[in-house]
């Protein structure tokens, strides 16, 4: 049975047809590949396909079934869509982080200032939190007009990447 893998904006269907140790026959969408694939516990892959040598490294992201893939020249965001994630997707859970009504930072850092309080009305584009990381300060803005409904962090607190900081209703 095949699974679906999303690479950037493309969704491909993958299926292993045959295997003999490290020699695999794999179908990606309509194409069939015979590859010689070796990998290790750290997510490093060495694949030889028709004589070409590919090095790929996969690093799991915080979200389950999401990876960053590093190749020779590019970095890709990859996601495995199995039955479970399809179910969650359909239910609207585990969707995009930083959705419409929340504010988060793509990087870890420290909260410098929160110029708003719960109950404050804000307009789209108003700065609601300032985060400092590595000697640089970044301002994060309200994504919509609304009212601050929840503030999950306080000033001087250190935060993780993609943590929901402020919620707006």
């Amino acid at each position, binding site marked *: 049975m095949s699974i679906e893998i999303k690479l950037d904006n493309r969704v491909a269907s993958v299926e292993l047809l045959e295997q003999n140790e490290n020699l695999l026959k794999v179908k990606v969408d309509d194409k069939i590949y015979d590859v010689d694939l070796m990998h*290790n516990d750290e997510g490093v*892959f060495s694949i030889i396909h028709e004589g070409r040598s590919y090095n790929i*490294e996969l690093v799991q992201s915080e979200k389950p079934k999401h990876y960053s893939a590093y190749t020779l*020249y590019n970095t890709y965001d990859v996601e495995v869509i199995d039955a479970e994630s399809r179910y969650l997707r359909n239910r609207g859970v585990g969707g995009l982080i930083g959705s419409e009504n929340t504010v988060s930072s793509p990087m870890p850092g420290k909260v410098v200032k929160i110029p708003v309080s719960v109950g404050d009305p804000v307009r789209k584009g108003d700065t609601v939190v300032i985060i400092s990381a590595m000697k640089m300060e970044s301002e994060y803005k309200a994504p919509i007009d609304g009212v601050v409904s929840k503030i999950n962090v306080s000033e001087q607190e250190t935060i993780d990447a993609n943590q929901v900081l402020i919620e707006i209703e």
Partner: protein
Amino acid sequence: MSKINKILVANRGEIAIRIMRTCREMGISTVAVFSEADRTSMHVRYAVEAYCIGPAPSAESYLNADKIIEVAKMTGSDAIHPGYGFLSENAEFARKCSKNGIIFIGPSPEVIEQMGDKIEARKTMIKAGVPVVPGTTESIKSEDEAVKIINEVGLPVMVKAAAGGGGKGMRLVRDAAEIISSVRAARSEALAAFGDDSVYIEKYISSPHHIEFQILGDQQGNVVHLFERECSVQRRHQKMIEETPSPLMTPELRKVMGQHAVEAAQTVNYVGAGTIEFLVDNNLNFYFLEMNTRLQVEHPITERVTGIDLVKQQILVAEGEELSFKQEDLFQRGHAIECRIYAEDSDNNFMPNPGKIHNINQPLGLGVRTDGYAYEGYEIPIYYDSMISKLIVWAQNRDEAIERMKRALYEYKITGVKTSIKFLERIMDSGDFRSGNYDTNFIEKNHEFLLARSPSADDCEDMVIIATYIEFIDQINRSYTNKELYPAQNRWTKYTYKKNFERL
């Protein structure tokens, strides 16, 4: 002459390790200091001794002069090397060291002060006959005076804080109508940032080259320069790439600028390693910009073409040794380029990207040097600079050096955090960089090219998809069966995937 047997390195990151390497080669013992956020930092493990000096924020640790001097005294350190940043250009700290009988590896507190005050530095340079950017030599006392001077100098001009640095308290004025408001803004920003609202006026040089000269002075009054570094590739006023020789330089200009750099240092009886920064326009007019009274981040390219270990020279000079070479003994061999590897998202306005390093593959082989401090599994703290490594290559000539840099960047893999490596590769591919025809506007000018994504072959994408598929299956496998304590001992695996296929 006082032999140094133990040095406290009042810094962290790559520069702390770089200094300790030379100490080790000189048979000098090393003391590391670290903040609470840096317990697992490489410099702690590299040093012979290591002491915690306070919480993560720099102000409470790496900038805590008294605490650092206390550790130096307790450990019997003869000297303190401040590296760059932190306390390296702090005259008060240098003075405290000397009061406590500890050698500060750097120039005297007086020279640090003199060069730290931008107006004072300008005056000194004018006295030494070094060309400075046209403008005022005194701080501006009134807005009227500002208008008068700006009219004399001619627009555009820069209004700059005398105590300035880091781009704060600085205003570019292109239009006469903006003069008053810009001066006001600069003064109030300067007051807020430095507690001093002195500003001065300089002619604005558009699209200049940033070229600096390395100098070395000893206590006997000898000063030499170690040629130039071209540092025009900058983003957010921070250097990204440096090279030497400068593609702009001519032998004649090098001689004249080098001579001025030496005279500038001699005027202030400079002792130790320092850098004279110049702005150079496309007509090869050059102007003194400022002097950095410390080691520079980009010092390795000078080391590579001259063969001189600059940290070793700093230590020898601090011991009172006379420089063992004269100007005529020095020459540049070949070409060196440095790329700074930042943990940042180059595609997203160079936003810093701290996090946990997953894997590192160091570039090695002919003509390649890396100075870094990150290691696999290391978590880059959010409190400090985002530069995690410097990649320096040398080759016989500039073309070969660019090709070697491309090769080294290609080999350099750091996963787990985003880095500037791919962006640097694009710079190496850009026409303007390859031709050597670039100035400080380079990144802005080439923005589109530098951010374009490399086209990737379809089959490469398919290989990524296959790898992800296998990784995913393998993970299911592993979580059920992997009871091994030492995964590292069995890294390459030929898994039998079959048993999981039914479950998919």
